[in-house]
């Protein structure tokens, strides 16, 4: 410091001030409020509007929800309890309806003694999916396996499954879980068998017909392996032999085997299906079938072969151009016209076919987007390595293209699952409209409008929101760049 300064400055502090805390308005809750809710005139207005909306929602729905009744035998009973507890003018939700009729929401008209079968099929779904969906993280996979096994067993126990069924369930699920843990490659094969197992569990009947269907694949595979050196001929021969087996031999063979050793479950017809069992059956089947079909369609649409490309474009644009309802009506009204006179097949199967075709067209467009987004260099690199078309697609193109299109694929799945509610218009018992109407038509639950919608809506929300969160997790897990 200079001499002149020493005279002009009266006082110089020679110690540091202790650090003061920031002013009240610049810290803690007040700062957060100022920054996030009241940072300017526009924001203040918006906050007030938001609070108004919240207040409106809470004041209309809040009392109704808080006055909910969970134990009653009917609407009249419910209203009496509400009037007694909260005064004569109070309104309240009657969730006793859900408690009373939950089995209809979940299982439709499925025989109550057989509830364990859909439960087991649903539990096994997770075992079948575990090697595919949770293959990388061992911890996540084990949690999923344990939860699926224990929960389905416990639910079946609570629902009163007979002892032999329980024992069989436990044995099957434990064996499968162990298989996944020690022989992951075999577990994939088991996942491929799952659809037939689920069909058997859900619809019952003789297991031999499912085994005969499966044997067709085995025979075709065998023919192809035996004649592998003939290239395309072997593929054609395998296809022909398998089709011949399914058309002419599978039925008699299954009948003969069933005569020797009857592996039968009590059959359940399709009109007994309903509720979430129906939705999930159609949804899962549609998802499982539409993805491969969509991939084939997308590849066909990007193919160099003009005839194949034209066919794919026509199919995709036709399906995408009409509403799903019209396709469902085709399934229920017209499909019998297209088949040989006298044939008719199951309505659920028809709906699954239509839903699959519908979702596959959308899926094809999503995957085509992924294929187009892949840099051209990837295709050229595959060519330069001398890979043929299918090897290039399988090893280089599709893994990347599918990864890019995960969000689109999952949103197509979600859309399809939501669309399963439309089956009500062809006479099936979806949980949303048909079940709610059925229950409302009964004397004791007449006039229950909101409760079924709230219940079914929340289940759909949980399932669809869960799927979208899973897709986000998958995207993060598969991300290979910008770590």
């Amino acid at each position, binding site marked *: 410091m200079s001499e002149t300064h020493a005279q002009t400055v009266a006082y110089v502090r020679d110690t540091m001030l202790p650090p003061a805390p920031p002013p009240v308005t610049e810290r803690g809750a007040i700062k957060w409020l100022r920054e996030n809710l009241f940072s300017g005139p526009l*924001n203040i207005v918006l906050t007030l509007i938001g609070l108004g909306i919240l207040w409106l929602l809470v004041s209309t729905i809040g009392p109704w929800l808080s006055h909910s009744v969970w134990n009653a035998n009917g609407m009249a009973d419910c209203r009496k309890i509400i009037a007694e507890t909260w005064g004569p003018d109070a309104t309240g939700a009657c969730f006793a309806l859900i408690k009373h009729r939950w089995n209809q929401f979940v299982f439709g008209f499925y025989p109550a003694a057989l509830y364990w079968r859909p439960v087991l099929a649903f539990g096994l779904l997770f075992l079948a999916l575990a090697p595919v969906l949770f293959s990388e993280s061992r911890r996540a996979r084990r949690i999923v396996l344990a939860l699926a096994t224990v929960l389905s067993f416990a639910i079946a126990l609570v629902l009163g499954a007979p002892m032999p069924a329980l024992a069989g369930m436990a044995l099957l699920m434990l064996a499968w879980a162990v298989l996944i843990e020690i022989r992951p490659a075999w577990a994939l094969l088991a996942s491929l068998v799952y659809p037939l197992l689920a069909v058997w569990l859900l619809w019952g009947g003789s297991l031999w017909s499912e085994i005969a269907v499966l044997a067709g694949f085995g025979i075709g595979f065998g023919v192809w392996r035996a004649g592998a050196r003939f290239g395309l001929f072997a593929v054609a021969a395998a296809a022909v032999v398998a089709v011949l087996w399914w058309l002419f031999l599978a039925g008699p063979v299954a009948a003969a085997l069933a005569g020797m050793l009857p592996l039968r479950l009590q059959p359940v017809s399709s009109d007994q299906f309903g509720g979430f069992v129906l939705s999930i059956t159609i949804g899962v089947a549609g998802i499982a079938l539409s993805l491969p079909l969509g991939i084939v369609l997308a590849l066909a649409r990007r193919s160099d072969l003009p005839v194949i490309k034209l066919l794919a474009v026509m199919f995709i644009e036709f399906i995408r*151009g009409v509403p799903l309802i019209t396709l469902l009506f085709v399934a229920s009204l017209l499909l019998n016209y297209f088949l040989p006179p006298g044939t008719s097949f199951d309505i659920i199967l028809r709906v699954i076919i239509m839903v699959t075709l519908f979702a596959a067209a959308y899926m094809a467009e999503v995957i085509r987007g992924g294929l187009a987004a892949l840099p051209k260099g990837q295709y050229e690199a595959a060519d330069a390595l001398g890979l043929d078309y299918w090897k290039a697609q399988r090893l280089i193109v599709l893994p990347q293209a599918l990864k890019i299109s995960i969000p689109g694929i999952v949103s197509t799945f*979600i859309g399809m699952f939501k669309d399963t509610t*439309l089956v009500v218009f062809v006479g099936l018992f979806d949980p*949303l409209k048909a079940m709610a109407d059925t229950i409302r038509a009964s004397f004791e639950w007449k006039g229950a409008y909101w409760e079924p*919608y709230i219940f079914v809506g929340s289940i759909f929300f949980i399932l669809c929101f869960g799927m*979208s969160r899973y897709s986000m997790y998958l995207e993060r897990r598969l991300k290979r760049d910008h770590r």
Partner: protein
Amino acid sequence: MVSYPGVDNPPFRWSMLIYDRRYRSLTLQAIVFILVMLLASWLIDNTLRNLSAMGKTLSFDFLFRRAGYDIPQQLIPYNSDDTHLRATVVGLLNTLLVSLLGCIAATIVGVVVGVLRLSSNWLIARLMTVYVEVFRNIPLLLWILVILAIFTEVMPPPNAYRGENPAASMILFDTIAPTNRYTAIPSLGMTNPPGTIALGREGISWAFVAYVAVIVLAFIGNRLLRTRAQRIQDATGKRPTTWWITLAMFAVPLLLLTWWFGLHLIPPVLRGFNFAEGINMDNALVVLWLALTLYTGAFIAEIVRAGILAVSRGQSEAAFALGLRPRRTMSLVILPQALRVIIPPLISQYLNLTKNSSLAIAVGYMDLRGTLGGTTLNQTGREMECMVLMMGIYLVLSLLISGGMNVFNSRVKLRER
């Protein structure tokens, strides 16, 4: 096929159809084509045999017979003595009406919610997130049923608006009265009507023609004005102020016309047990419209949000660095780039909304499916013809919408070198 100079192509042998990559594609296409044709001919053969077994022939004669059913909501005059064809057209117009209303309203809702979801206001952003997630993850059918239940269960009957001290009151300055059967809205009236052009049973008001002509002329005038402004800007570097001329071009003739015709709103008035004077909108239409709007709006909000987020921050910073004002930055830099991302998925949402309007079946709104694919089908028993016609109409509609929107898309698309 590729041929190389100086290399002799080997002579053609039949085995080349399988082993030579040049010919294999032809073989494959021929096989696929033959298989598809076989499948198609099998299906057609089955159909013809089934139809003849039932004693039916394919014919569209039924379209010209008397329909014999009523349609509550109609845009062109229709009564039960008209033909099935006219009923189909009424249904198609109803589909178009609810789709158009839905697209407009869903776009407004979607843009507002999409922008608000990015707002710095914590509360509003969260509320909008909840709205979007709830509506996207629950089937549309549920929203239709819930809104239907609100309208039938919660809304008052028309006579609740009656008397000195009514149980219900109209909303929006006494102009709209929602009831449990219809929603009464104001209608347009003219004190000095200019007459109509007669076109068969329909008539087009001269006033409507005049308004359309004035608006079209104003658009052309505006275009000329902008071209001139651009020319002056190119020559002198200064752009003349044009906004007030544009405003005048639109506003003055429209106001003049309105004054000349004496155009005014006639609010609905309760006469006896029902509302009269105004338009009583069928609640089926209102419910379907609201549900489609709220459901599709949630999807559009996500598209808008993604579009805005896709424009990198550097773009707006660069615009500010160039000295552009915020409004110009928005209109010249951010919006053109965001629109490029927004428009293609927006088109597919419009298509989805149009196709979802067939859920009118849940509320009994007589759209194309309700008339042609519903009552007409059931009355005439001609499933094949009705379904083919209905799917054809939906297909043409979808292709027209996507074609029209693609033209618009190609105009805003980035022109790459």
